[in-house]
């Protein structure tokens, strides 16, 4: 356990160092990874969303992404068909995903969401019931 904690600390230090070094394009690779392995399940690989009995909104060319807090709060809290990812994704993954969609798919918002900003809004929630 102690060993694992130590590794975690080392990893965190390395991460923060590399984040400073790569300030020009923070965590773009991480953002792409989160998007393609999680988000595109619903929002689709082209970020154009989908329509069935209900719909998943397009993230491509979406003016609602102008404020970085909006996608952050959607990911953290969820809403309607969108589950909360507060317990599933790490804060740096959430920040990376937000920064990725706000700079791809026809979106060009240069301001960056930081991991600290995500941590500040993470709720203390209990697990969902198992079934």
């Amino acid at each position, binding site marked *: 356990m102690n060993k694992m904690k130590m590794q975690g600390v080392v990893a965190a230090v390395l991460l923060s160092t590399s984040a400073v070094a790569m300030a020009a394009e923070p965590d773009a690779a991480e953002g792409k990874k989160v998007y393609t392995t999680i988000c595109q399940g619903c929002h689709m690989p082209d970020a154009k969303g989908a329509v069935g009995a209900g719909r998943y909104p397009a993230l491509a060319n979406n003016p609602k992404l102008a404020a970085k807090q909006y996608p952050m709060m959607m990911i953290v809290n969820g809403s309607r*068909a969108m589950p909360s990812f507060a317990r599933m994704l790490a804060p740096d993954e959430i920040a990376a995903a937000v920064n990725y969609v706000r700079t791809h798919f026809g979106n060009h918002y240069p301001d960056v969401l930081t991991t600290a900003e995500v941590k500040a809004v993470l709720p203390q929630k209990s697990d969902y019931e198992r079934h």
Partner: protein
Amino acid sequence: MSSKQIPTLSRRELLAMIGTVAGSAVSYRAMASMGLIEESTYNGPVKLEGSPKGASVLILGSGIAGMVSAMELRNAGYKVKVLEYNNRAGGRNWSIRGGDVYTELGGFTQKCEFDKGLYINPGPWRLPYNHHGILDYCRRLGVALEPFVQLNYNAYVHNTQAFDGKPQRYREIAADWSGQVAELFSKVTKQKKLDELMSAHDQEALLESLRSWGALDRNLKYVPGRESSNRRGYEKPPGGGLDAAPIYSKDFIDLPDILHSGLWSAIGTAEAFYHQTSIFQPVGGMGRIGEAFGRELADVIQYNSKVVKIHQDNDKVAVTYVDPKTGGNPRTVTADYCLCTIPLSVLSQIELNVSPQMQAAINAVPYSASVKVGLQFKRRFWEQDEHIYGGITYTDMPIGNIGYPNTDYFKSGKGVVLGAYVHGRNAFEWTAMSPAERVRTAVELGSKIHPQYKDEFENGVAVGWHRVPWTLGCAGSWSEEARAQHYENLCQIDNRFLVAGEHASYIPAWQEGAVTSAIDAITRLHHKVVNS
């Protein structure tokens, strides 16, 4: 509890007295009335007595909840109509069979290439004996059932980080775990370490029960011999004729290795109330239930109807629907009441006028992620090579399970296994893959348990529930906070509108939740109609 309190008659003592004096049937009823036995909330076919006075009910969705409601309300004299998004009845009660074509959100289309008679249940796949409601509808609709094997002692439990990644037989893990735990506990007892907790008399009985539970020998040891081999299996089982004497199994797995492997978690899983023998499945696929309901209600279900607006006033409910493919051809149908079984992930996006409390409840329930993959193999190698007949192998790999077919045993020819049943974050990741990628990954991971996969695999089908166009997720996923804040508001009758479904139950994702929710909803609605 201290034993030095003033003596009063405990519940247990009272029951013992009732049992002695009046016999066990009375005792059983007394226990039930005192809340010591959990009776099913399903108490036989619902009786809706009194005239509905010509009232009409529009039901949205032809899943289990919608069709239970439609059948019972029609029987009670209501005018009923069901609107359904799909071109079939059943909803998540669904089997994909050879020849079926399924297109998920994003336009990914799969044509199932399974052989005739082979299928996969992308949604529910088992019917516990204690789910009296859904089982009773199977009985009433003539849906034939067969056993579902939940616990197969000869199937595997597998952890990539334990035993060099080699799958272990459940039987050996379970026997060696309980045997060594029982021996340890016996030792502690004999060392007088329980003297402060139990009387000597109780300790004697404890030791006898540990001997039986753990398959210990007469010295309370779990050692190679008749007792242990009778649990974990033999090195050479007894046979007939010459040279037929058994050789007892002696390569036990050390307790610490079992403990650190985590493989014991499968023992608890098998013990769960909804996993206990007997469990059933419909012959020919879970979808047989929805199909039977669909035949029963053929004249009241209108397919290919996508609901876009629900509006109620003091006189009626008006529901507007469109063609699901084009989004065009809007039509409006009215009724006195509307019972809505549309999943909340979808309903929360439909224009609806209900109280703010109910709307908040509808918006508050996220849907869990789940992915199932069916794989067709050229032969039933799990039976032929490994003597696994039905049941489930559990693994810590993202596939979660390998579910073997609980039917057609010993048959030559092809077979379909559930190659993955993915949950949690893994399920979101698998949903983000294309169907072909999910199948490919299931084959790759499954081959670490069954090397035969690589040679025998033919084709597969994969369903990621967040890409299912008519549910946008697997099942209602309640948290404690959401239950406390929203559950009762969700289940109210709001003027002329109410909901039913697994999402309005305490057993989400189980069909029994849909049945009991529907019966509760129509019972309350009927009461309102009869007394209005």
